[in-house]
């Protein structure tokens, strides 16, 4: 999927992955209410077009790093829903055998490396992978997904400067959902449009509609091509909105109702559904959605029946253990 305009088939697949993600988030919300989740869970309802559209624009050998809110990236990158759910529920069959959890999922096979719960850390993470690719002479690209809050960190500045200075094959995708935890972006940033900062690093920057999966796909595809050519990084600010709380423990109260309503009317899944219905017919789209929902339901059913991991001490060769007694000098 590297052409700048996705085919109808590609669009349908992105739609399916967005629906898959939404089902994941909604089911997690219900399970949290039932007291069946562990730790805070950061849902991305309303933001699915960003993670899904962006990962669809990557090649199989590319890398992606994401945030504490990475479910759309996980599923967009094609991870197996059952193993994602299993990881969220700490099962042995999860991508990290329950060691990582929902924020810290990583999968080498797909280059999804990975979720990161230190705000901003996904930015230098992708930049370092891009440096490695440049030194290895590999035409592989690293995509950094990060929030509007993360855009205010020092490492964001440092990474963008280094990436532009060395023309590293990295794409900076700023997932702007208007809030950093509870604080509105107008109270976090000295400029309203974060893409304006790109000029200061001498790289292209643009602000796009992050609820339009095609717009995200096209912008990221173009930036990926540029990076792969050796022309360096780009900054894409994708404007979107978080329709649910910051996490499952958010008590709310800071997102105005009319603001939520305005964005709910522009739900990315509704937008792509309308576009696809026109092209392929409503029945085909509904069937695709039903299949996605069934797939996620099955993922939950299987994953929740999977075993919990048991603790095993580290092998002496592991970096976490001391050598056994009796060594010489």
């Amino acid at each position, binding site marked *: 999927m590297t052409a700048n305009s996705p085919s109808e088939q590609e669009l349908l697949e992105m739609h399916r992955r967005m629906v898959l993600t939404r089902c994941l988030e909604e089911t997690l919300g219900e399970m949290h209410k039932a007291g069946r989740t562990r730790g805070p869970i950061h849902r991305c309802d309303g933001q699915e077009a960003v993670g899904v559209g962006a990962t669809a624009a990557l090649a199989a050998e590319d890398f992606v790093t994401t945030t504490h809110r990475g479910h759309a990236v996980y599923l967009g990158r094609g991870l197996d829903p059952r193993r994602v759910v299993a990881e969220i529920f700490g099962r042995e069959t999860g991508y990290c055998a329950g060691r990582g959890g929902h924020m810290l999922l990583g999968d080498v096979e797909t280059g999804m490396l*990975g979720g990161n719960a230190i705000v901003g850390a996904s930015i230098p993470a992708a930049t370092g992978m891009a440096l490695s690719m440049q030194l290895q002479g590999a035409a592989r690209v690293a995509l950094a997904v990060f929030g509007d809050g993360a855009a205010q960190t020092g490492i964001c500045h440092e990474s963008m400067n280094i990436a532009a200075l060395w023309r590293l094959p990295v794409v900076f995708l700023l997932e702007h959902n208007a809030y950093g935890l509870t604080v509105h972006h107008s109270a976090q940033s000295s400029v309203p449009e974060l893409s304006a900062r790109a000029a200061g690093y001498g790289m292209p920057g643009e602000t796009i509609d992050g609820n339009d999966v095609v717009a995200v796909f096209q912008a990221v595809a173009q930036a990926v091509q540029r990076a792969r050519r050796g022309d360096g990084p780009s900054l894409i600010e994708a404007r979107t909105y978080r329709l649910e709380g910051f996490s499952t423990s958010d008590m709310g109260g800071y997102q105005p109702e009319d603001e939520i309503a305005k964005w709910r009317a522009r739900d990315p899944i509704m937008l792509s559904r309308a576009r696809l219905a026109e092209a392929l017919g409503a029945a085909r789209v509904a069937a695709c959605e039903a299949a996605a929902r069934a797939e996620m339901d099955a993922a939950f059913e299987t994953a929740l029946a999977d075993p919990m991991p048991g603790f095993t001490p580290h092998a002496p060769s592991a970096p976490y253990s001391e050598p056994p007694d009796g060594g010489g000098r």
Partner: protein
Amino acid sequence: MAMMRYAEALNLALREEMARDDSVFVFGEDVAAYGGVFKVTQGLAEAFGDRVRDTPISEQTLTAMAVTAAMAGSRPVLEIMYADFLPLSLDALINQASVYHYIWNGQVSMPFVLRTQGGGGVGTGAQHAKSLDAMVAHVPGLKVVAPVTPADARALLKAAIRDPHPVIFLEHKLLYNLRGEVPEEDDAPGEIGRARLVREGGDVSIFATSRMVLEAEKAADDLAGDGIAAEVIDLRSLRPLDLGAITASVAKTNHAVVVNEGWRFCGYTAELAATIMDRAFDDLDAPVERVATRDMPIPYAETLEREVIPDAAAIAAAARRALA
């Protein structure tokens, strides 16, 4: 055998490893065109081109990049000019480097080396003279080595570069000009996790790290004048520790002095003392004596700095207390 300076031995190790493995690269502030402010990387840029990079002054990001460049197939060697700047690297070390091998269930390893130099004694002041060994040695998932001799500098840097996991490589600004024999013909890497017996003795064991090993040797000379035979052990590897070497020596001498140039409170000597208590309590005839830097900023004036950083006299006095 060739006589060379500690800095030259490090340079040799970098050259050898870069020549044998294309995935090794060196980056950091002033390391390329100038050859490093301590001249450890001199000439590498000429020999290896783009694989030796001067960087912006961005320690946090550089450290984080070392972690993921390593994950993606490179073997980065990052120079952090002063150990005092390690706090900037700590997020990448503690929250990134140390966690992924475990939380991703062995899917990734991160073979990178962070080289830095610490320590006082030459008036570099409170922000350029510290030994923050304990801060990095505290972290499960990081290995920490601190060679003292040129031969060990070369062998352990080679081992660190080849290690599949992150290694923090602690140098000392007063060691760079130290000369010693380096077996050039033997280019085998050293073994991380092994202490070095510097001097045998049966009365008291002195376990020291980095430049403090040199002070411990002087202290042992002084103690010998009083008929006290001190055993001096250079730990070389701060993590993992050579527990066998430690317990064997304490079993022989029944007295232990532990020395490190970092602060005392929650410091590296506290870990050493506790380790000896855990592992060799029954062999001890006296409490473990600790020698460390006073818990305060490192002062600038020579008369003040002298009082704050441990020396041979402080080590000898600790040994005498242990034996009293």
